[in-house]
């Protein structure tokens, strides 16, 4: 018996969003009488943290702490249209819509503050702590609490805004395929290290070192969540998962979590995540969509590492012990 070790690398890019119907998403933002802000959407949180991220984006744009923002989603009676949560589009599309809506609301807020402080709105800025201050004269200020009260009960202004993301719809050119299918691209490079048991074909992924470039880590802990979970799913795709283990034969499809194979908590590779940020021109605070691409580079990196370890190529997913063992036997002398 021999346990053979190998490593492999893969590099990928990934488009943000889609371009079906211009990939639209809308957002509404308004303030309550005491200067809290509601973001109203119909976007769906699948667990990636849409609600929290939209709150942080709105807070940054308005100039208030995140805990002053509440995100209300997804009720079609109140939330404006969102295309949906897929194609790495949620943060990017909804984030852009929220920024636009929040900017409009912020402008009204500054105008009301300007009336209260008897200055020009263009001379005002937020301190991020819940106050509006005169640029260069921070002693002259008013709280957003008081601005909202004034807007609601004195000035008759609605501190609110509308936001929409839409790109021109792109139809692929028939003969050349010229098209604009998406917006900014995220990037990744992964190095995987594996051990392969050359008598059974079993693979152990020892380490994965992932470098992801995602534009902007809007909330680094939440980015980490998604990248770590995605890296696990990539390894899972590489070695375990399928609903049709004997494809194209339709037989023996798994119907439960015992038969549908995924790495268990005892199968985890030591996972390293490094994040680079090259802000995109069109993303909310430069963010790109990391949700899908983070599960892609591990698959070829693991495949290449297996070749490095035992000298056989498995070009069919998933790379099961059986496929490796068959390849090893086919390559064996005599």
């Amino acid at each position, binding site marked *: 018996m021999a346990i053979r070790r190998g490593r492999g690398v893969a590099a990928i890019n990934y488009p943000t969003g889609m371009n079906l119907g211009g990939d639209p998403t809308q957002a509404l933002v308004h303030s309550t009488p005491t200067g809290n802000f509601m973001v109203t959407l119909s976007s769906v949180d*699948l*667990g*990636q*943290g849409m609600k929290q991220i939209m709150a942080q984006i709105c807070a940054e744009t308005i100039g208030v702490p995140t805990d002053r923002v509440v995100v209300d989603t997804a009720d079609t009676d109140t939330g404006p249209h969102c295309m949906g949560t897929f194609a790495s589009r949620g943060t990017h599309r909804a984030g852009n819509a929220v920024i636009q809506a929040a900017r409009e609301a912020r402008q009204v807020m500054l105008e009301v503050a300007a009336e209260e402080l008897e200055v020009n709105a263009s001379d005002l800025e937020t301190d991020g702590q819940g106050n509006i201050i005169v640029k260069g004269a921070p002693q002259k200020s008013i709280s957003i609490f008081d601005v909202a009260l004034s807007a609601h009960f004195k000035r008759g202004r609605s501190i609110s805004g509308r936001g929409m993301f839409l790109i021109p719809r792109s139809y692929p050119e028939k003969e050349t395929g010229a098209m604009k299918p998406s917006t900014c691209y995220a990037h990744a490079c992964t190095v995987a290290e594996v051990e392969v048991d050359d008598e059974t074909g079993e693979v152990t992924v020892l380490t994965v070192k992932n470098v992801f470039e995602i534009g902007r880590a809007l909330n680094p*802990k*939440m980015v*980490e*969540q*998604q990248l*770590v*979970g*995605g*890296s*696990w*799913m990539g390894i899972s795709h590489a070695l375990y998962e399928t609903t049709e283990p004997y494809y194209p034969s339709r037989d023996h499809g798994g119907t*439960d*979590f*015992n038969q549908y194979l*995924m790495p*268990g*908590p*005892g199968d*985890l590779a030591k*996972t390293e995540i490094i994040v680079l940020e090259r802000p995109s021109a069109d993303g909310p605070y430069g963010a790109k969509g990391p949700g899908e691409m983070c599960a892609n580079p591990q698959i070829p990196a693991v495949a290449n590492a297996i070749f490095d370890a035992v000298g056989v190529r498995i070009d069919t997913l998933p790379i099961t012990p059986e496929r490796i063992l068959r390849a090893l036997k086919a390559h064996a002398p005599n």
Partner: protein
Amino acid sequence: MAKVPVQFTLNGSEKAEFIDSGTTLLHALRDKIGDTSPKGGCHQGTCGACSIIIDGELRLSCLTLAETCNGADVRTTAGLSEGGGLHPLQRAFLDAFATQCGFCTPGMIMAAKVLLDHTPNPSREEVVEALSGNICRCTGYEPIIQAVLTAARSNSQNVA
């Protein structure tokens, strides 16, 4: 359809219901009693989302008939934070960012609680074994393992 009585304590308070014979405890808890913290992820015993604690032991409420729990002490994640404050495990899951979609979380916390009740200072291997019946599709497990280890450490510090 004949109804049968069931009576047990849920998170310390007495519950009594008439249910259809053959009803699983998961259905009785969610649909009759109104504790929706155990989740129905498979109804096969393969995902662990419905994990609860019966008389101190981890069980799957989807495969347990409610009638067999008469007189039992049933605990769910919903009962952990009664009285306001979070249980150290709940706090550790928050701090470790160990939840994403959250659907597996109540079951994970039940599995972890039984572990820490019996093994206050578990090794990583013991944590992995304790969570091995619970599926998570979002996190890759590592943040959950770290949360349980952190909760164990904070427990032992509190004792010390």
